[in-house]
């Protein structure tokens, strides 16, 4: 299945109540698939093409406020438009899933694949001290599995979760195993606005606290939640690290291209391993720090001008040299280029 279509099918199967979106290349197949599949007949899930990306994220805000499993998706310029809404949803502590099939920017940029929205996804993008939980699939299979995981995490922590895909993962086809259809939940959460019940206080969903003392309490509560997320939800994959003298760090589709470079390097006798963060927030700080004590140098490979490399450097904290190789603007690094960068910047450097 195609990455975007598999992801859309996963949303239906994960028991989503609603999807609100607006088409943009290279993620339009998500809404196209959902419109064609008409999940209202299968599960009762509602699918709506909103009048804009901003409308779509605010529809998600509304549905989430009612305790519903809501999702939206877009690509980079559209995700920028959703950032205000995401900050509000994070501030109001509501669960939702947002998919970004990244294309190259800045501005309208190009429709070709990129990873240049790492900072936006991981560091904020919207205003205020908030965090998104960010999942980075590298295969069509992970695009499917992470939809289910994203809803689980979103409701566990009452926090928006972003799936940071890209034009390669979205457009490519490969084998995929779909999980069984899950029933839609009709659970009535005590924090959801479902109408005031007799004898109970009214529920108010808001991200507005005009009293600074109250706003600080909200922020402290959010920070405590983020520490829990950092403790419990770090996910990563390593390969070839047992005997590694050098290390690649890469995420998403770029990690797969780097994996090819790893095979080529090993064929030449270069002992290199790879760490692929599957959660970009929370970031696998401890594992990178541990590996930094073992290897002679780390090459971070990304399809941007160097974003995750900053988090790698923070994790490494000077223990070993960290270099960067990247292509951007919709260009995709080749395995040959990555191997050459390893040899020149790390081994020869």
């Amino acid at each position: 299945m195609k990455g975007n279509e598999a992801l859309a099918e996963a949303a239906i199967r994960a028991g989503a109540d609603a999807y609100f979106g607006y088409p943009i290349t290279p993620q339009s197949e998500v809404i196209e698939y959902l419109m064609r599949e008409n999940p209202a007949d299968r599960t009762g899930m509602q699918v709506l093409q909103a009048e804009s990306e901003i409308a779509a994220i605010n529809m998600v805000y509304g549905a989430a406020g009612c305790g519903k499993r809501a999702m939206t998706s877009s690509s980079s310029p559209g995700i920028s438009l959703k950032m205000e809404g995401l900050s509000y949803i994070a501030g109001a502590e509501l669960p939702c899933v947002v998919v970004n099939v990244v294309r190259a920017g800045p501005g309208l940029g190009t429709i070709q694949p990129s990873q240049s929205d790492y900072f936006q996804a991981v560091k904020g993008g919207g205003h205020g001290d908030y965090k998104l939980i960010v999942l980075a699939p590298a295969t069509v299979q992970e695009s499917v599995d992470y939809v289910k995981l994203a809803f689980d995490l979103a409701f566990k922590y009452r926090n928006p979760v972003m799936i940071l895909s890209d034009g390669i993962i979205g457009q490519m086809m490969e084998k995929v195993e779909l999980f069984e259809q899950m029933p839609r939940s009709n659970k009535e959460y005590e924090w959801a606005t479902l109408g005031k019940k007799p004898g109970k206080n009214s529920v108010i969903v808001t991200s507005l606290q005009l009293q600074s003392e109250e706003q600080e309490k909200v922020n402290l509560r959010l920070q405590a939640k983020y520490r829990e997320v950092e403790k419990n939800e770090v996910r990563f994959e390593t390969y070839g690290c047992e005997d590694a003298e050098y290390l690649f760090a890469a995420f998403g589709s770029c990690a797969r291209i780097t994996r090819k470079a790893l095979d080529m390097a090993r064929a030449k006798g270069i002992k290199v391993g790879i760490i692929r963060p599957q959660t970009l927030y929370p970031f696998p700080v401890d594992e990178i720090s541990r590996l930094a004590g073992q290897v002679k140098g780390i090459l971070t490979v990304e399809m941007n001008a160097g974003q995750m490399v900053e988090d790698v450097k923070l994790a490494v904290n000077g223990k070993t040299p960290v270099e960067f190789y990247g292509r951007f603007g919709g260009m995709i690094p080749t395995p040959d280029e990555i191997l050459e960068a390893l040899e020149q910047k790390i081994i020869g450097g």
Partner: protein
Amino acid sequence: MTEEIIIAGFGGQGVLSMGQIICYSGVMQGKEVSWMPSYGPEMRGGTANCTAIISDEQISSPVLNRFDTAIVLNQPSMDKFEDAVKPDGLLIYEENGMTRKPRRKDINICSIAAYDESVKMNNTKVFNMIVIGGFLKVRPIIELENVIKGLKKVLPDRYHHLIPLNEEAIHRGMDIIKEEQAVKK
């Protein structure tokens, strides 16, 4: 076994669906597969291409810069991908519309007059199936029965009556592909 293939030509020649059919057939044969299309501006009225990978092992990169096989169906694609074939690899080109022959001396080269053959069959839509037939003759990585199974999987039921026609096109391709240059392994 791993076969890394680039298929390139004009939009409308069935380039993307060729890659899909090869991949679906690979799935039927129990292989790992990956298909990555070009979807950029070149799709809007220029050249289209896709990367198809068939392997016994898990596939790492879905995008590549060097290939075991390049199937090129027009001159711009030949110009772009002839140099991307690995040494001892395979280049298959469609004769129709080519203004120059391939230059490489270190690769296997085959030509196929698939367009002319599709005209003879009174159905230019099977052009790409003829090319697939030619490819499978030279690189028999997938059995014909699995290609047919793949077609049944891809095509909606209402088109299943066209499968015998496609099967014939594959056989024609196998018959007409010509070896132009062979390198020693």
